[in-house]
């Protein structure tokens, strides 16, 4: 899984949302009764928008610590839904900031925003499929 460590370069070749992770998620609610997948993805989408806004504002103010905290949160929740590329980017950003290398994190943040776009789109698409399947 070495490719996960550098999603910015090879990410386009991979699916945005990891199929195995999604399967795991689905396994938590096998018959779909609790609509868990839908609720998790909806929750993720909401929190993603909120957290990206927070990160952008913090970066504008130079509040790097806050940037790191947002990255930490997004790291685990992204991993949970299988957005492994985004999760890896968040992990790098968090690590660099904690290590006092905020400047080195700057280019990663650009990549981060691009990946957010893709993940958001993929999540939205999956949600639409779920809606369609449900109706």
């Amino acid at each position, binding site marked *: 899984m070495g490719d996960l460590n550098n999603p910015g370069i090879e990410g386009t070749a991979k699916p945005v949302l990891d199929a195995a992770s999604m399967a795991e998620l689905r396994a*938590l609610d096998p018959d779909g009764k*609790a609509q*868990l997948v839908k609720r998790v993805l909806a929750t*993720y989408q909401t929190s993603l928008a909120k957290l990206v806004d927070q990160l952008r504002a913090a970066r504008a103010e130079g509040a790097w610590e806050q940037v790191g905290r947002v990255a*930490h*949160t997004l790291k*685990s929740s992204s991993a*949970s839904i299988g957005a492994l590329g985004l999760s890896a980017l968040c992990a790098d950003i968090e690590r660099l900031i904690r290590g006092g290398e905020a400047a080195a994190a700057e280019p990663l943040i650009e990549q981060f925003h691009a990946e957010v776009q893709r993940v958001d789109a993929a999540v939205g698409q999956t949600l639409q499929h779920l809606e369609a399947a449900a109706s």
Partner: protein
Amino acid sequence: MTLHHGVSLEATDRRPTVLLVDDDEVNLLMTAAALRDRGFDITSCTGGEEALTRLASWTPDVVVLDAIMPGLDGFETCVALRNMPGFDNVPVLMLTGLDDEASINRAYQVGATDFFVKATQWSLLAGRLRYLLRASRTRQELERSKAKLARAQDLARMGSFDWWQDDNRSFVNGLELSEEGLRVFGYGPDDRVNLRDMLRMIAPTDREPLVRLARQILYQVSVIATDVPMTLPDGRFRIIHVEAEPEFDEHGHCCAYTGIVQDVTDRRIAEDRIRHLANYDALTNLPNRRQLIWRAERALEFGRRLGHQVALLLIDLDRFKVINDTLGHAAGDELLMEVAFRLRGCVRHCEQLFEGVIETAGSRSHRTLEAVGRLGGDEFVALLPEVADEADAQRVATRILEALREPVVVAGQDCFATASVGIALFPRDGNTVADLLRNSDVAMYAVKSQGRNDALVYTPRLAGRGREKLALESALHKAIERDELVLYYQPKVDVANGKMVGVEALMRWRRGDLLIQPADFIPVAEETGLIVPMSEWALRQAAKQARIWADAFGFADSIAVNMPNRMFERTDLIEQISSAVREEGIPHSMIQLEITETGLMKDLQRVIPSLHRLTEIGVQIAVDDFGTGYSSLAYLTSLPIAEVKIDRSFVRDLGVLPQSLAVVTAIIALAKSLDLKVVAEGVENQRQQDVLYGEGCSLMQGFLFSKPMPPEDVQTWMESVALPRKAVAVSSTAKVRANAGEVVDVGRRS
């Protein structure tokens, strides 16, 4: 000790409740779903503040906290949670990042139970939670059983302790008591106590042997089990039971003791009470027969081993029965208690000694056996475990007699409770306790027969008295209480007019089918002192009879009761007579007392005051057996007496020996000159009657008129003989005048 959430944990069939706290809502949703799927009951919160709010009103079985959260993070939440009452033992699982070692360490510092690296491996998380719950439950059960044990120990006033050797192999510093153990001594849970503090609570006299015992136990590595009397820091006196077993290190050396301390004061008090009841007389609190005999046996063992003499003093009160009979049992008890108190002061009385082993270390330890005990009734024993000679024992006896010389106030009256003391010495007078008791008893009886209120040392000579006599004595002792004594009455008549002028009461002892004459038991009664209660009984009985006759046929004369001279020496004779006549509602004059001339003269000065007082209250005194003693006529003139009775020996010889007539004539003349009544006793025939009457003595008593008879026959006698008074009188005087010298044995018919 938080029991409340432990109770909820017991229900294992219930889904365990989990509070899940994570700011990452996605993770929260997924974790919740995963854990619900695995049998947990999940409540979710997205932040520390929200979690604490929930916990204010609810306690989950386990709390799962995300370590890193905005606002109150997992660590701060955990600290806050631990500070909430009842949350000190709720398991808390901290979720940390994989590479976050700092968080892991901090998690433990803030009181988290465990940490778990965030992952999607839900089964592992669920397994960890179950493990935490089980550990918590086990811990909870342990806490509860500890609490139960503590409570049980508290109830039993018991606590545990450890006592160990320090590096210098010394046991002085290593002592630790459990909270309950501290409480046994009145200490709080935070107090620290060392061995020296403990030793200070023990009286110096007890400390020394205890330290010696402790050294011995440590040396022998034996089990500790001992009761220690202690005065606790708050001043309470308690008996603490200490029980401990040694613990051994890998080399097999005793390195520590572990055990319990228990306040056994109440139990000991109860045990002591039982032992006391078994060994002490309930009334006087003196050692009882059992305890005395035990002590005496131990004393003899010591005497045998150490070669010294032991003395046993048997102390019998002289007048106890009289007091018991006249003043009642309560008064008797009161007297016994006072006597016991005084006797106790006469020896080095040692209170507390039961059947335990006497410390054999001290060579004088047998001295602790010394005591006064109560054998029963009015019999006491003084045990002197070591005497140099019989003079030693006699000194104690003298002290006892002296102590009883002062009157005892009982029921508001002064009573004289003198004692007769018999002394027997080991080994001279006996080798066993039974022998010594028997021989001191012989000596004591000898004192009784010699006038009581004295002490005698046993000699074989004293034991020479016949068995028969002893049996008679002991039977006579019981005669009064068994109502075996009876009074017979013999009329005194005035032959001038044929009237009965009174009766003399004469004692008989109805012993089985036999009616025993006074000559056969009065001497023994005199000798043993029993004559006193017997005389007192006779007084009361005579008063009763006077009442009965007064009611039955208007009896208004007096009943003469024989009194030994010692009765006149007693200060309460007047009171006895007064109470007897008062009880029957008869005048004092219906009781007459007869004292023998010999008795009167024996100790005249001591008797005279009583005679005066008796005469003042109307009780007449007759001098019995007159003519046999050596009366100083000068005294006779000044004595307050009303009547003299001519001794039967002179009457018997009237007309046989001329001297008798001379004596009789002289007595009659003397009586007349002193204005005393004169009565002739033992008149058996007409000739005697005639001579007496001729000399001017008309009052007579004897078989010629009537034998002594039971009280119920007196009225019949009066009706058949005395009622036709004139006739009898006429015929009687006619006979005297007409047939002097002719014998008419009227008395023989009854």
